[in-house]
């Protein structure tokens, strides 16, 4: 009997999975394009938004999933549990959906302390409560010691999309302003600082939080928002490159406008990392027609989360250089903001 592969098998640069395949950069994109899309491709998935948008009858839903393997599981400002809830909730919210229900799947390592599990689960319950979602189904698996690192969590989420809201990365239009909701790189740097072996003193705390309230306030007042993303893995650089590529538009950013905390900047200088490549877990990037940008910025700046006051308009969408993100430097020259290649340091989210 002959065996035929159903999917086209493209050429690979790597024969085995590398850490960078999971880092949200170029290699993650290759994996999606070359392995998953050829086999799973469909109209909802092919958009490669952070969530699938689905219609059942007259209702529109958003559906998403995410898996959390962070080390350490407790870090300044949060736990793996906070991330698992907020990450999925935010992926729904940036699609313009009101998150309603989550699932939670746990892979636990033999010997993992029960007291740590309770702490993680409590943090999930608190985060769900704050985001206004319920965890309505779940699953637990235990693997032998050494087969996972303590605890891995998968969450999936379901939300409803209100009428009149159409948010997608393909909707970017020339003239749109690009706005970020606060300082960049806080989560990734808080985790790196807390990791074993990185022994600099730091008070950087993760920005992990639900974006539901902020986004619903923005959409209530400014329904004409074109695109939203939460710049998690790969940071702002990955997110904006994905937006530019999906929409076929160019993006120009002002280097002077990036909000970065001085201690995050300092830690990045020390480690040789660009804060624009560092993960955030409680920030949103919004593309909105220029005339509405001021309104969105005001809404962000009136919030009470720690860096709300640092929300800023950082650039705009242009017709030039489609698919590319360009930074106007402090000196007035221009440089490319590249899609991060891969691993900054392993397992930041």
């Amino acid at each position, binding site marked *: 009997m002959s065996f035929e592969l159903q999917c086209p098998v493209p050429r690979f*640069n790597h024969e085995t999975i590398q*850490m960078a395949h999971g880092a949200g950069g170029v290699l993650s994109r290759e994996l999606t394009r070359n392995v998953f899309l050829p086999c799973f491709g469909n109209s909802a998935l092919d958009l490669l938004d952070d969530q699938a948008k689905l219609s059942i009858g007259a209702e529109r839903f958003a559906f998403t999933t995410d898996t959390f393997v962070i080390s350490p599981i407790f870090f300044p400002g949060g736990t793996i549990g906070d991330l698992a809830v907020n990450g999925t909730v935010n992926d729904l919210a940036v699609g313009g959906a009101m998150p309603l229900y989550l699932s939670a799947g746990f892979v636990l390592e033999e010997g993992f302390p029960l007291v740590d599990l309770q702490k993680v689960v409590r943090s999930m319950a608190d985060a769900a409560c704050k985001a206004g979602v319920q965890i309505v189904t779940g699953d637990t698996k235990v693997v032998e010691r050494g087969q996972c690192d303590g605890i891995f969590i998968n969450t999936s989420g379901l939300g409803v999309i209100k009428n009149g809201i159409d948010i997608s990365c393909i909707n970017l239009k020339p003239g749109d302003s690009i706005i970020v909701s606060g300082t960049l790189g806080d989560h990734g740097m808080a985790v790196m600082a807390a990791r074993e072996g990185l022994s600099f003193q730091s008070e950087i705390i993760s920005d992990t939080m639900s974006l539901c309230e902020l986004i619903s306030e923005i959409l209530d007042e400014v329904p004409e928002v074109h695109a939203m993303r939460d710049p998690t893995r790969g940071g702002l650089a990955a997110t904006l490159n994905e937006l530019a590529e999906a929409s076929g538009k160019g993006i120009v950013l002002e280097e002077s406008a990036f909000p970065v905390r001085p201690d995050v900047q300092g830690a990045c200088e020390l480690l040789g990392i660009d804060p624009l490549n560092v993960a955030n877990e409680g920030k949103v990037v919004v593309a909105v027609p220029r005339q509405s940008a001021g309104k969105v910025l005001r809404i962000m700046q009136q919030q009470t989360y720690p860096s709300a006051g640092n929300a800023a308009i950082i650039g705009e969408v242009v017709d030039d250089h489609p698919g590319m993100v360009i930074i106007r430097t402090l000196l007035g020259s221009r440089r*490319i903001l590249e899609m991060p290649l891969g691993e900054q340091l392993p397992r930041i989210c």
Partner: protein
Amino acid sequence: MKFIDEYRNSDRARGILEKIEDTVTKPWTIMEICGGQTHSIIRNGIDQLLPDEVRLIHGPGCPVCVTPLEILDRALSIVSKPGVILASFGDMLRVPGSRETLLAARSRGADVRVVFSPLEALKIARENPHHEVFFLAVGFETTAPGNAMAVKQAARENLQNFSELVSQFMVPPAMRTILSSENNLVQGFLAAGHVCTVTGYEEYERIGEEFHVPIVPTGFEPVDILSGILRVIQMLESGVCGVHNEYGRVVSREGNPVARKVVDEVFHVTDGLWRGIGVIPRSGLLLRKEFSSFDAEKKFNVVGIQSDESPLCKSGEVLRGMITPESCEAFGKECTPSMPLGAPMVSAEGACAAYYKYHWKAL
């Protein structure tokens, strides 16, 4: 941030650019030695802002780029042995060896760990007494003191499961080689600020006199680099050679005597094989005889491993300043940061990577 913001100040930078425009009367070619400076120049678009008369060419001062292929192949060979842990600066992990990278070796099960200092590698050795731990001791005068210190400390603690695979280089012999070359284009240098922090600049004064060139140690921020360029041009225009220190906030004439002493205690000077450039006499460092038990090449008997470069890769010409990265035929085609042919496309300090990442005109 103190010591950063004032050196990224755009008004100051523009002021210096105007002075450069006012000063320059004829074409000059300046080499920035250090890859960190190259990245800053391209990242900040300084090359786009300079007057046409000023040509910058990028020097060989990228530690990852000049580490010979056989060092990587030797590291790959050692780390594939059971019970061995390799500790390395993160940058080395993506550099292609003859067959694969250290990252690929790690994905196949090799124990490769990223550290930020050789002293962390010592810690791994202490914590894993039944493993052999070796550190990839690469770099210039900047990394040599730390790498020497780690060996000295290991000797003091009698830590017999620690060793270093050494590929250390020194900048001044490379400058002499460039200046002595028949095709030399370089008329003045921006010297690498952090190297001079350790070594001081007396040796540079001798090179400046001997070859009649201006040499200006400077830093890495836009204002530092532009001040350095302005100073080199002022010296060139007025026919002055020798050293003028523009990085006074960290560089002194005598350097750091404590760091120099420990390097001298642990290493001796030898000929150095630079990737892409070849052998430069008396430009390398090796462990002294009394520390030879910490020499990974000897311990694991890998000295015999020799390697050949990809014929497509023109990194040698890039590293000698003969061509710019984008004039290499493989640039952006066969050679990209995700599939690099040569080390300059990988490293955070590599000129090819800087052009690929940031350069508006190169693409």
